[in-house]
């Protein structure tokens, strides 16, 4: 009896968490379907009086948003890929080797994770202009991947430390070549950790805002978070609010899909890097 009552309390708690997490999303979706010309009122309601697709048509016909979407996808994917590859080398060395500077590298990664990025926008702005990479993809990819590196390195080295590396030698003793041992034994063991790290790194790059508004000035490289903050509406007479919500819904979809598909991995990855692996 007592156990049952307790479990009912925990279920209620779980429901409250879900409401807390998802209620703002419901508001975002609801607002994105309101009529941009009539939704403003003295007494606004939660749900639209009439559901319309207009806002989604607006964002997908606006060059600011479509180019921002392209930039965001391209920049986030490339920065994630590079960060994961660079971190993979470092994490492999950290997990398997003993060398001077290993502690220094880990401390440096930690320091950079805590670094106030706003302290760098001035110098980077100036450096990027003189290097000619201001307002370009590469100009955002470089700082994005740098600030994502600590996250990638820790998460992956935590995963790599759990791999039973002896199995590689065991396979070689059993007659596999070095390459076969690596390919058939180590890669399948390491792949989940690398993949999880890639998801977390992608979230990080997808979210990045400060550098995106500081190091860009046009549609060439402006990402979605930056474009959202500059969006002024389909016309100067129309409020941008509902269109901004529609654009927010669009950029939240990949996040929701990744979370739905890889919930367990993301949980494991988030905690592996921060508390004992």
């Amino acid at each position, binding site marked *: 009896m007592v156990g049952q009552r*307790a*479990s009912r309390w*925990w279920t209620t708690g*779980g429901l*409250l*968490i*879900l409401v807390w*997490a998802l209620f*703002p*999303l419901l508001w*975002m979706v609801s*607002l994105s379907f309101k009529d941009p010309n009539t939704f*403003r009122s003295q007494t*606004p309601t939660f749900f639209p009086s009439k559901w319309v697709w207009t806002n989604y048509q607006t964002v997908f016909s606006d060059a600011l948003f479509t180019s921002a979407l392209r930039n965001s996808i391209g920049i986030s994917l490339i920065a994630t890929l590079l960060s994961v590859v*660079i*971190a993979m*080398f470092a994490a492999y060395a*950290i997990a398997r*080797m*003993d*060398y001077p*500077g290993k*502690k220094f590298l880990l401390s*440096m*990664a930690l320091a950079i994770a*805590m670094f*106030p*990025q*706003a302290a*760098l*926008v*001035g*110098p980077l702005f*100036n*450096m990027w202009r003189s290097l000619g990479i201001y307002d370009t993809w590469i100009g955002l990819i*470089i*700082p994005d991947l*740098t600030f994502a590196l600590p996250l990638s390195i820790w998460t992956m080295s*935590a995963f790599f*430390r759990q791999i039973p590396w*002896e199995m590689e*030698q065991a396979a070689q003793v059993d007659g596999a070549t070095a390459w076969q041992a690596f390919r058939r034994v180590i890669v399948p063991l390491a792949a989940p950790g690398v993949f999880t790290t890639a998801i977390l790194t992608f979230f990080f790059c997808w979210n990045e*805002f*400060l550098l995106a508004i*500081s190091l860009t000035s046009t549609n060439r490289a402006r990402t979605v*978070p930056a474009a959202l*903050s500059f969006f002024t509406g389909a016309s100067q007479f129309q409020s941008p609010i509902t269109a901004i*919500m529609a654009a*927010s819904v669009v950029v*939240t979809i990949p996040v*929701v899909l990744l*979370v*739905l598909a890889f919930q367990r991995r*993301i*949980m494991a990855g*988030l*905690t592996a890097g*921060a*508390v*004992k692996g």
Partner: protein
Amino acid sequence: MTLTETRVDQPAPQPAEVTDRARHERRLGLTLSAPAFIVMVFVTAYPLVYAVVLSLYNYRLTDPAGKSFVGFGNYATVLTDPVWWSDFATTLVITVVSVAVELVLGFGFAFVMYRVLAGRSLVRTGILIPYGIITVASAFIWRYAFQLDSGFVNQWLGLGDFNWFGQRWSSLFVIILSEIWKTTPFISLLLLAGLVQIPEELQEAARVDGATAAQRLRRVTLPNMKAAIMVALLFRTLDAWRIFDNPFVMTAGANKTETLSFLAYRQNVTLVNLGAGSAISVLLFLTVVVIAFIFVKGFRTDLSQVRGDR
């Protein structure tokens, strides 16, 4: 751990071989770490040094010819300007309030996620969504919920035409709310990871000895989670201290809601006042160093766990 195990498996090598292998391992380790090291130095260490140099000059991009050496003049200007201190106070309030609320809320969430049976994975999936959503979107969602002509909050709470963004404290309330919504999942997951590590036998033993739930929490759970709590606190404190997106989107710094990161951005990028802007950058960096130092030395936060070099 793995290292020692692998070594045990190998036959005891000759001394000459050891140094050879060790040297090879060293070189390979350094080579593999080099790309990460170089990228990090190029994008953070070098610009930081550059900022220190620039901060000693009076230098505006709009007037490059007027560049002149002023020593610590910029620092004196910044530190005697009420804007710096107002932004400092704003940042401090946001950090203290949001981290305190998140710690309590995060604990609640962690306990629920630990104990809940029905729909456990649903709860864990749900909580990851605020974590993954972009901060700018979160800021807009909450801003429009509270805004007079679009939001439902005043209708639901019967507040009439109270303008949340009309003054400092109510604006900060909404900013902090968005910050809490977006980042509590992170802190609660770290706490959950700490909670899971406490051996069930400890709780059981305390229960057998007649400890009440409150006593078990205070004497068993919390002491065993100290490391996880401190790490979560350190990360969230520094994260909140650097807050930028929420005030930028919600108030654009109006009504004294500008934060230190926002100030650095405004001076450097908007006003291209690189001399004073760099001084602000360096000061902001120093505040972060001080906070990290307080946590590591003052509260003895064990970073080897985070760093992974146990």
